């Protein structure tokens, strides 16, 4: 597995460990205000990263490392911005203060997905023997 894939999977582990701990904490407190932040951390940080990492490992002979690392960096930034902002938004309901950060974060996530789309299209249309 290329290093970029292993790095994606490491992000998966980190997000799932934090996300699961967060879920258990909510259950213990019987307060599920933060549920959307928990869910998005697990899915955007955990599941999507694993899918990205898996794809680059399966295209290791033909993928573009530069695109893959850009994809990773964007994912990392997007999750690190969106999830804390979303958590603060849910906790304080201060849309004016935290709304823009969730907006910026999710836009970066879309950019990450677009980068991945380029990688995928590149693999679809590449010349084959």
């Amino acid at each position: 597995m290329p290093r970029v894939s292993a790095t994606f999977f490491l992000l998966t582990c980190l997000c799932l460990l934090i996300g699961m701990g967060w879920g258990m904490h909510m259950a213990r407190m019987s307060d599920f205000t933060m549920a959307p932040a928990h869910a998005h951390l697990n899915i955007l940080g955990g599941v999507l990263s694993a899918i990205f990492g898996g794809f680059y490992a399966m295209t290791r002979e033909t993928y573009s490392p530069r695109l893959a690392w850009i994809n990773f960096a964007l994912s990392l930034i997007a999750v690190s911005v969106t999830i804390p902002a979303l958590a603060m938004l849910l906790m304080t309901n201060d849309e004016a203060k935290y709304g823009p950060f969730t907006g910026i974060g999710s836009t970066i996530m879309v950019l990450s997905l677009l980068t991945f789309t380029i990688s995928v299209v590149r693999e679809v249309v590449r010349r084959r023997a």
Partner: protein
Amino acid sequence: MPRVSAAFFAMGLLCLFFGGAIGMFMAGGGDAVYAGMHVHLNLVGWATMALCGTFYALTAQTLSPRLAWMNFWVLTAGIAVFFPAYALFLARGNDPRLEPVMTAGNGLTGLGMLIFGISVARELLRRRDAVHTS
């Protein structure tokens, strides 16, 4: 695909069948209190198992079978402890007596993820040949 990967997929599928069945039960007018169980069977049971299995299949040449199987059994044990307790918990209107069992199951699942983390760190840090250094 190494056997451990296929085992992850098989166990994940078992969870997906149950998770899907609960979803269909709710869609057919069943009690919606089971929504949380549906979501978590599909994500913790199926998605997590499938992504672990995929990881080990993609590192078939370099994985540690001992770590991989430990990951599989600890995660499976966590799921086997948590979900029946969660079902009873919900069926009995959030019966607090089941909370310790659920916490134990969650602890095992967390431990399984930690073992997965060790496998991933091992793959990230291993020495690479000159061809695939990216």
